[in-house]
């Protein structure tokens, strides 16, 4: 598994996600947003968290028009994996790789806290190390994670099983109280129809070491490199 982690001006989670990928056994190359091509043999493109372009205009809007996004789009069209985390989720939505928009959190506050998620399906390249319905404890850190889309899009995502993760309580109950940001149907992450593109607001890359709070995030990276989490 060869991963290309894209850095935009204002990205700040590129180091964390590279660490998580390397821990799982992937090879990681850092790629600058102004580059026009991905490294040869790239399997996975990661758009990391942060505040690309200072969130100017709309979160992810300017990064979504960067040079490297044309190559990323072509990679996704070929069936290549694209993972957008937090600001990366905002970028893939702005780039049209996933539907919908991440809006300002319903309570208008920047939320930085631990958060339980349900793993909606375990038969995807990103979640095969988890069990279907498993509750994982990761963290969220965002001001604009309120996922919305029109009714038709939500119905399609739900109908085709493209919701990847939902905000839940520790028992796995998907409730309004467990929804940190107002996202429709507690949606925390979604897949493209071919399951090769995943966007999510929470940060699994920050829960990969018991020294720093837990290891529930490891499963995603282990799934990607095709082996079970230790």
């Amino acid at each position, binding site marked *: 598994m060869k991963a290309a982690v894209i850095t935009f001006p204002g990205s700040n989670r590129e180091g964390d996600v590279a660490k998580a990928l390397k821990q799982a056994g992937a090879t990681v190359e850092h790629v600058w947003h102004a580059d026009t091509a991905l490294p040869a043999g790239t399997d996975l493109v990661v758009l990391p968290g942060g505040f690309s372009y200072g969130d100017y205009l709309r979160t992810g809007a300017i990064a979504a028009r960067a040079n490297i996004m044309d190559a990323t789009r072509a990679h996704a069209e070929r069936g290549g994996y694209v993972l957008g985390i937090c600001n990366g989720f905002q970028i893939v939505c702005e780039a049209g790789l996933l539907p919908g928009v991440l809006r300002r959190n319903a309570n208008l506050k920047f939320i930085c806290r631990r958060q339980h998620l349900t793993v909606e399906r375990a038969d995807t390249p990103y979640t095969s190390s988890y069990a279907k319905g498993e509750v994982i404890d990761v963290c969220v850190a965002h001001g604009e994670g*309120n996922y919305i889309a029109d009714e038709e899009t939500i119905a399609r995502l739900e109908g085709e099983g493209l919701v990847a993760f939902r905000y839940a309580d520790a028992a796995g109950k998907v409730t309004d109280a467990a929804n940190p940001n*107002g996202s429709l149907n507690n949606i925390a992450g979604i897949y493209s129809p071919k399951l090769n593109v995943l966007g999510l607001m929470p940060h699994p890359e920050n829960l990969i070491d018991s020294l720093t709070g837990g290891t529930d995030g490891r499963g995603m990276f282990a799934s990607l490199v095709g082996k079970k989490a230790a």
Partner: protein
Amino acid sequence: MKARVTVTLKTGVLDPQGKAIEGALKSLGIDGLSSVRQGKVFDIELNSADKAAAETALKDACEKLLANTVIENYRVEIGG
């Protein structure tokens, strides 16, 4: 030539910032407001004086970057 692009949220899209501003205005005792929606204004200077070309360029700018047409509408006004 000057132009102004106004980007506004589509009807039905929740606007938590607008709601907060509405609440603040009401708490200041400003009466008669039924709702507040927040948008964006871009004042743009154009090199050429060709109105039709400017309109095409600005529409392109809105579609490609200035507005997210999933949730926003835009209006282009070209001045003298």
